[in-house]
């Protein structure tokens, strides 16, 4: 029986009879199997992969958490932020300061970094009550510039341009000091945040966010406190980004202000755009895509270096160019991003080969 089933068809087996069940996560048996299988495979990944692959997976994991955060703010609540790079820096430096200079445990520093970033994020979110669209984007751009400046100049806390050396976290006496050990920390955090995000949009808060995105005035009319919920969106989103920053700091173990520039902000925006605005899975696809894009390009450059002279000289420029062109092409041809493309593929194969 199972043999004949089309793997793209998962709807069968949904028998919800009341609203409570309808609101719940409804996994069909096969979908549940798939999710569990993917998670198990992800946990097994370090066994079959070399160090380089695991380190890439770590970068992807951190990007996933950050992209989820930005998508909550930009994709679900419709508030544009060009300050994610700086907020990442706030998280990284808070965690770094607490562990390296105050000697606190990583496990305290991690949530504190999230909370501090949430606080900073909501402060810069205050203008969002009066500012919309472009003007808000510019205000968050100002946040980016001001925070970056603070990171460079507040040397007492950040060591300025010299960078801050951060210890590795220790779990049950084991130092998470290599890619493989750290991978499990990042993976677990990323999975928890993904589940939380899925759940967030089943609650009143999440629905309010979506209502604000669709039409903020209408949302206010039906009784959503705009200021409160916009602040909440900024705080929750920044919390994610702060945690991503803290993980980043303890992964690289040396942080300096040039890791948190505007180009990082643009990369994160590109992740949510290419992945799909307002899609949880989209954030993940986008994070994978944007993190791996330069890696793939480097590989291609390495492979073609025999044919094209000076490829090393121009590879940086080329990478930047392809990054930009990718964003433009996605926006023109598939504004809903990879999430939509994946959905289209699934829909196509659902009735394949008898589509009509």
């Amino acid at each position, binding site marked *: 029986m199972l043999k004949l089933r089309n793997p793209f068809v998962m709807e069968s087996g949904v028998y919800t009879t009341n609203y409570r069940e309808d609101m719940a996560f409804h996994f069909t048996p096969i979908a549940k199997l798939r999710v569990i299988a993917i998670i198990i495979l992800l946990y097994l990944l370090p066994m079959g992969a070399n160090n380089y692959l695991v380190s890439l997976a770590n970068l992807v994991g951190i990007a996933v958490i950050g992209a989820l955060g930005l998508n909550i703010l930009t994709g679900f609540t419709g508030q544009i932020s060009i300050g994610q790079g700086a907020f990442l820096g706030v998280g990284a430096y808070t965690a770094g300061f607490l562990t390296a200079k105050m000697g606190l445990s990583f496990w305290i520093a991690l949530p504190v970094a999230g909370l501090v970033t949430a606080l900073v994020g909501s402060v810069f979110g205050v*203008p969002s009550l009066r500012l919309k669209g472009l003007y808000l984007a510019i205000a968050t751009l100002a946040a980016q510039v001001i925070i970056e400046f603070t990171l460079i100049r507040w040397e007492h806390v950040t060591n300025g341009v010299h960078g801050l050396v951060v210890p590795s976290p220790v779990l049950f006496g084991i130092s998470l000091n290599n890619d493989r050990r750290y991978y499990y920390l990042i993976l677990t955090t990323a999975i928890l945040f993904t589940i939380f995000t899925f759940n967030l949009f089943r609650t009143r808060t999440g629905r309010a966010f979506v209502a604000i995105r669709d039409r903020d005035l209408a949302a206010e009319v039906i009784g959503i406190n705009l200021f409160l919920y916009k602040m909440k969106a900024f705080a929750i989103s920044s919390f994610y980004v702060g945690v991503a920053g803290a993980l980043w700091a303890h992964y690289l173990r040396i942080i300096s202000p040039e890791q948190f520039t505007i180009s990082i902000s643009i990369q994160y925006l590109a992740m949510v*755009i290419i992945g799909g605005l307002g899609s949880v899975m989209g954030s993940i696809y986008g994070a994978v895509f944007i993190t791996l894009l330069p890696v793939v390009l480097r590989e291609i450059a390495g492979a073609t270096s025999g044919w094209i002279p000076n490829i090393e000289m121009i590879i940086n420029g080329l990478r930047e160019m392809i990054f930009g062109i990718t964003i*433009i092409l996605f926006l*023109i041809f598939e*504004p809903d991003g990879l999430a939509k493309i994946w959905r289209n593929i699934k829909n196509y194969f659902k009735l394949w080969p008898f589509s009509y």
Partner: protein
Amino acid sequence: MEFFLQLLVGGIVVGAIYAMVAMGFVLIYKATDVINFSQGELLLVGAYISLSLMVQFQVPFLLSVILAVICSFLVGLLLERLVLRSFINEPVISVIMVTLGLSSALRGLMQVIWSTDTRVFPTVFSQAPVKLGTVLVSQVYLWSLGISLLLLVIFALFFRYSLLGVAMRATADDQQAALSMGISVKLIFAATWAIAAVVSAIGGILLGNINGVNPSLGYIGLTVLPVAILGGLDSIPGAIIGGFTIGVLENLAGGYLDPFLPGVKQVAPFVILVLVLMVKPYGLFGKPIIERV
């Protein structure tokens, strides 16, 4: 006092260039509701073309400027047709993101062609500084001030009196009404981008003569954003006043505060920006948007 005057004059000159670049933002925003984050890269295009013509082909300065302006005009048309045309009436986030993508693509392309080294213009303006009262100003700055002011006046007149200028204002005001009056909105959009690219190119060439040309010159696009916002994105007088205000304040902050807080010069415009936005969300002269459900 002399120190103050020196800073003030320096600020006014830089402000004039800012005002000109900000004009590029305002032009595009007024006509098409797009804020162009790739303005800085358009600056670079002009500067690089003029520089290459001068250095590699020994073209005289004035001719190289004219050729750079023509090229920028075409680049502007091309960008509008290939990329921006698809984003009329798209959500703000897409529009912001597409111009950010454009800026990446252009910056990358220019890195591929011209590498990242700083290139210097051959001396065009005499090095000898001019004495204005008690203040010394180098000639490049004076020329920049003069050219910027001239362009600002030309544009003011253009929008006031020429048919195309009036049509552009009409389009900015209400696209549908403009269409029904027989204005080709597509043509207007193309013209807007071309003109904005030209303004940027001239700004880029002037800045290139002051500081040399390298990709980081493109970041001036970001510096100028506060200028455009301060004055209000849809106000040309706003851009001019904003340009001078930010130029002067930035220079004063740089002069008086830099010894205590190095780098404060670059941040000052953004601090001013945040403060202004808190009080006047649409800038000093911007038109508030009235929303109805």
